[in-house]
């Protein structure tokens, strides 16, 4: 069974569950409607494409990058890089060099990559509110007062990251910044999922404490 299908199914589910938790993401998704972002990260044997409509469809791309690039429309963006280059992408000062060395390629509509990055970067989810919907408000609140420290640390990390990115967009060549942003959007998603997991475990502990009383 192609592992790629399992991977994209999982990614797709995660993304489409997380996005609606931020009421503002609908508008950002709307702006991307009809657009597609394809990423080839060597040595991954296939590319990944994100197609935007009222939801995000994640698919494996088994065509060669050249074929994808040849068929780009004005609603397409295709990025190519390699796994070994990913760490270097964190240093915005290196990006221009990477492009010159052809370790990084962007074809098509750059704005799409930028919008995709914004979609995930600007996710602002009220986890307390989410939890309150499944449990009662008091427990949710307690879970969050105790868990807030961790939560804030994560948020501030994300904030720093967004600022770095923001600077990159301003300071570096546009081209480079977009790519950096895209490389990190997956990270953001998993950070958010970690967040939920942490909140859940705090909640469990609290519940145990409450029932012991």
């Amino acid at each position: 069974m192609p592992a790629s299908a399992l991977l994209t199914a999982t990614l797709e589910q995660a993304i489409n569950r997380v996005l609606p938790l931020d009421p503002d993401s609908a508008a950002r998704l709307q702006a991307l409607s009809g657009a597609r972002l394809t990423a080839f990260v060597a040595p991954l044997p296939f590319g990944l494409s994100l197609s935007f409509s009222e939801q995000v469809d994640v698919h494996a791309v088994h065509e060669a990058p050249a074929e994808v690039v040849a068929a780009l429309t004005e609603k397409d963006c295709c990025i190519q890089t390699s796994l070994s280059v990913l760490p270097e992408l964190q240093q915005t000062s290196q990006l221009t060099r990477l492009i010159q060395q052809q370790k990084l390629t962007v074809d098509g509509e750059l704005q799409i990559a930028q919008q995709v990055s914004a979609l995930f970067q600007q996710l602002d989810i009220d986890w307390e509110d989410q939890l309150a919907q499944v449990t009662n408000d008091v427990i949710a609140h307690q879970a969050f007062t105790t868990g807030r420290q961790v939560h804030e640390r994560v948020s501030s990390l994300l904030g720093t990251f967004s600022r770095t990115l923001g600077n990159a967009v301003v300071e570096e060549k546009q081209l480079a910044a977009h790519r950096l942003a895209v490389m990190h959007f997956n990270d953001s998603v998993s950070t958010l999922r970690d967040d939920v997991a942490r909140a859940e475990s705090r909640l469990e502990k609290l519940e145990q404490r409450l029932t012991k009383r």
Partner: protein
Amino acid sequence: MSDNAPSTPVKAAQTEQEKTDFGFSQVEKTQKASLVANVFDSVAAKYDIMNDFMSMGVHRLWKRYTIDCAGARAGHKVLDIAGGTGDLTAKFSRLVGPTGSVTLADINLSMLKVGRDKLRDRGLISNIDYVQADAEALPFPDNHFDIVTMAFGLRNVTEKQNALNSIFRVLKPGGRLLVLEFSKPTSEQLSKLYDMYSFHVLPKMGQLVANDADSYQYLAESIRMHPDQETLKGMFEQAGFEQCDYQNLTGGIVALHRGYKF
């Protein structure tokens, strides 16, 4: 071809009164279509649930892989023949976007209706047409579609070669056909295990969940009667397809065949 009313059925021209397989039974060729119709009339309502149940959800991955290999892009015209309850159509509808179109075609009105209701409930309407049609005699112009997919449908067609020829005709030059179908497991052990599953477990599940053991017995038998990987590849070539290849999925329980029209 309207969103609201499936168009009139198109019957394949049939001249010779020969026998063909219906599962393990031999029936008049003219009878097979209506026998198959009975099966899908009978399973339509519970079709989606049974698919998940019987394949343990894996059919979704097979279909997803098929879509990945289809290379659908914004603006493409896609035909999902024997599309049934529209699993592939739903995905394609979003991938080809408002500038593209997807035609969900099936010979069976019950299946088509279940599909149409499901897709409408999901808000997918604007770029989907619903057409009642026989794969053997597709009611579409020559050189019309960029992509044709047929998932778990070919097995049920009376004259499979006619269907492949007909699909070849409606594909645009440069277009591709993807056929996802049960096939021949590559290992002896898997094959035995799979036989046990399909002939003993499956009809019982069909009885329990859908109260319809016969239809699922037919399913098992029709899978066994379907041409193996190499034979089907040869039939693709005979229809005129080029660069034909196939990929075994889940040890050959299912194979994805692909061919291009140039």
